[in-house]
């Protein structure tokens, strides 16, 4: 009847989950907006079928999905006390994240300079740059957090006993990857 309820839950984990729920609501709104404006685009305007460079996007998507696996490995290694494996997988995750951001940068520069698609060109531009831009911003924040954890780990502050910070960062990272799967499906598949 009076079992202690508090021990099972860590407030920091609950807090991170709650934050991710609010992030999901945020991206849900942007995605819903994207879908709301899916409609034929006047000929001559940049449209989803011609504008997007699918091979490049597939490559960066692959990197981001792979990074979810590597951060999972990193966390497992951390819990087992394999310091170097942890550092290695963690750094790999970071590099993959940076490659993804590079891919986005390439994509944007080609869109803006070659296809003349900007945020103010038409509704596709408004929706696309807002949605993908906010996702990229979240990846960037994730990369910074990865870097902070890496720095702290090299100073032995992140240890198997103090692994919660690393775990929460990995949750955030998985979430950002999951959002990308939806964004990819909506922007590059459904919109075509």
């Amino acid at each position: 009847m009076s079992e202690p309820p508090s021990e099972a839950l860590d407030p920091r984990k609950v807090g991170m989950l709650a934050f991710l729920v609010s992030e999901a609501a945020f991206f849900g709104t942007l995605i819903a907006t994207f879908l709301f404006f899916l409609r034929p685009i006047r000929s001559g305007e940049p449209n989803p079928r011609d504008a997007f460079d699918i091979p490049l996007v597939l490559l960066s998507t692959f990197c981001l999905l792979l990074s979810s696996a590597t951060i999972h490995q990193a966390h497992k290694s951390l819990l087992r006390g394999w310091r170097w494996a942890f550092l290695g997988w963690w750094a790999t995750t970071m590099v993959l994240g940076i490659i993804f951001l590079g891919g986005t940068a390439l994509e944007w520069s080609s869109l803006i300079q070659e296809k003349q698609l900007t945020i103010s060109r038409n509704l596709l531009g408004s929706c696309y740059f807002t949605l993908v831009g906010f996702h990229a911003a979240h990846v960037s924040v994730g990369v910074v957090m990865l870097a902070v954890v890496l720095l702290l780990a090299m100073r032995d502050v992140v240890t198997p006993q103090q692994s919660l910070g690393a775990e929460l960062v990995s949750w955030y990272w998985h979430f950002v990857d999951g959002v990308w799967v939806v964004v990819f499906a909506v922007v590059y598949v459904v919109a075509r």
Partner: protein
Amino acid sequence: MATIERESHVESPPWPARVHDWLTTVDHKKLGIMYVALAMGFLIIGGIEALLIRWQLMWPESRIFGQDTPTLFNQLFTLHGTTMVFLVGMPVLIGMANYLVPLMIGARDMAFPRLNALGLWTTLFGGLVLYLSFLTPGGPPAIGWFAYAPLTGHTFARDVGTDLWAMGLLVSGVGTIGAGVNFLATILAMRAPGMTLGKVPFFVWTILWTSVQILLAIPPLTAALIMVVLDRQLGAHFFDAANGGSPYLWQHLFWFFGHPEVYILILPVFGIISEVIPVFSRKVLFGYEFMAAATMGIAFIAMGVWAHHMYCVGLARTVDIYFAAASLLVSIPTGIKMFNWLATMYGGRIRFTAPMLFAIGFLAMFLIGGLTGIMLAVAPVDFQVSDTYFVVGHFHFTLIGGTLFGVFAGIYYWYPKVTGRMLSETLARWQFWLLLVGFLLTFGPMHVSGVLGMPRRIYTYLPDRGWDVWNQISTIGALIQAPSYLIFVWNLMASLRSGPPAGDDPWDAWTLEWATTSPPPPYNFEEVPTVRSRRPLWDFKHPDDPDWKYEG
């Protein structure tokens, strides 16, 4: 000996040290007090705006500000609405929850004390960003609190005031989301030993569901505000109909936030009332489980009723019917609550002190607001009175008659805990009756002028419409209300020094916050008590007849 030591404690450090202390604090109690103080400050500002609005409407064809009256009137009602919702309603409730939730569940602080401080300061700075618009050449925004496109478009609002409005709400929204995260983590993971989720004080339960709504409703507003800013600053086309954008999308997004928002403003008040009525009726809360389920029900239904604010844009017939039916559903859990409060009072030994007076005022006034809400949920009625003063009357009955009366009940109830002093009962009675009479006179006649066809947000009207007398009664009511707020603020400040000492438990109450000193020490509880029922203090006071024998 003890007296000498007490006096040495009273001697406070010099003021710069004290200011520094308040600016850098992460103590949930100090942050809670600052939240409430912030809200009171903005309440006075928003109230002055309301008085100016009422004064302008007192006589037909008046122009109290001369040539600028139409613009200034638009700016006033925009600021009044935005201020009251974002800078008074939410901060005062978040502040009270901040102060009380850890104390009620036997925690030392909130889960994330620094995030808590961030929330307070973003709310304050968000408000300042909004009010900085007074210093800009174009003045404050003139777009209404729900800022329908295309009014926010660059074509119609060329001045920077609209940008500051969006920025202010974005900044304060960050703090609100932080508060939601914080409450969830605190309530779910930091309760005293033995306090299962089914045994939390009812106020805590309502804050739990308010937080869920914050997490689901504020981010869509954030996203929508970002779109407004992108439209205005970078030339995006989200709400720009000329280029394929959709003003209609803004209405959907805003009300997807806006409707849960009104429950964010009322659910915590249901919690306050559910704490006050049992203590002042000397009975347990009737039907706790049903009340808890009703709270959840309201929180869920509230996410699916937003388009009842949009009947008049011409939704599809099926959509109208769905949203009307869903909105009417809300009346079921709300009705359950009403009846349970009455059943709690029924046969109780009621003490008519200030908190109970305001709680009863809440029951009566909120009931009226709820009933006109049911009328408005019916689409054909809404077609007739949408955007008239009937709507204005309706939501002021829920926000003043509901939220504000409940907040006053809560402040009269917990002020002794926060300060260690009792508030003056005499002043409380003056405040109550002036507020009640003034409030009824202000907002009752609005239903009539609304049915007579007076649209909201018009800066003046012609004398031959039959609206004059109703507007005059409203304005007189506002003038009667005004001193009640001053009496309240005066009571708060004067009692701080001269109120009679409260002791730990002046109301003979039953929740954990009354087990510690008034005011509580920074760490709240020396030792965290073990809880066995919903009324832990009852169990301590009546060891031979404890509640846990009766609770399932």
